[in-house]
């Protein structure tokens, strides 16, 4: 499931466009996930999940930073995300099905904000990239 050179180029091009706002879009994706898929909220009983919550924003930034790291390190996702794989496997133990829900909401967020860039080929590249990230996150589960 490795990304082709063209797919990497598409993902990187969009990420450059997102610039410093990756956190904003990741936060919106989280908000969409919590609203559309209420079961996902069960992993955050310790957070205020109301719209506009500073805690959700902070978490969105964390997710954004991890994704930006992944974009930069497409050649070695297991290495780059090793800490996060361990964390999700042994401490957080989020059911991997939830990663797909967040990825879907990320795509929805990007489609909504960047319609001109969100061609089918771009969507396919992003979907593949996110799929690689989530399988890396789940790789140490068992």
């Amino acid at each position, binding site marked *: 499931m490795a990304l082709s050179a063209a797919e990497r180029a598409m993902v990187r091009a969009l990420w450059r466009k997102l610039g410093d706002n990756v956190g904003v879009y990741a936060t*919106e994706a989280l*908000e*969409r996930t919590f*609203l*559309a*898929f209420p079961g996902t909220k069960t992993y955050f009983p310790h957070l205020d999940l109301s*719209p506009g919550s500073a805690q959700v924003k902070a978490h969105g930034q964390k997710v954004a930073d991890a994704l930006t790291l992944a974009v930069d390190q497409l050649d070695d996702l297991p290495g780059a995300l090793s800490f996060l794989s361990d964390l999700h496997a042994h401490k957080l133990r989020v059911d991997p099905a939830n990663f797909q829900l967040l990825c*879907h*909401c990320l*795509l*929805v*967020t990007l*489609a*909504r*904000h960047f*319609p001109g860039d*969100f*061609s*089918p*080929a771009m*969507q*396919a590249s992003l*979907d593949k990239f996110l799929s690689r990230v989530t399988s890396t996150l789940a790789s140490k589960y068992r």
Partner: protein
Amino acid sequence: MVHLSGEEKTAIATLWGKVNADEVGGEALGRLLVVYPWTQRFFDSFGDLSSATAVMGNPKVKAHGKKVIDAFSNGLKHLDDLKGTFSSLSELHCDKLHVDPENFRLLGNEIVIVLAHHLGKDFTPKVQAAFQKVVAGVANALAHKYH
């Protein structure tokens, strides 16, 4: 049964009225075939699906997308009885077409993505949540008669 509030039902009807349903159908099906190429297994007779451009421009994809969205639109008028509404389509997809129900969930999510793409700021998180309930309900209804 899909549980939607009055506000959600209104939002869905309003936004559905703002889109060209036929275009949404063609685009959602096209994107499904591009993003998840293994779904092309059901469409050997459709001709050229060799590239994203070929898929999105393929007249058979557009025509089939319209068929699918017509059924979906009909579902929107019968949200209180999706299982009844999609009963014969469910049997068809199981007995004749042999389609894995997972594909209904994938296509439902593509419809959501295309709506976000077309509607922009109108496709708020609340509206998305309402549509997710609908596409999940339709997918479940289509899978209901499988045996």
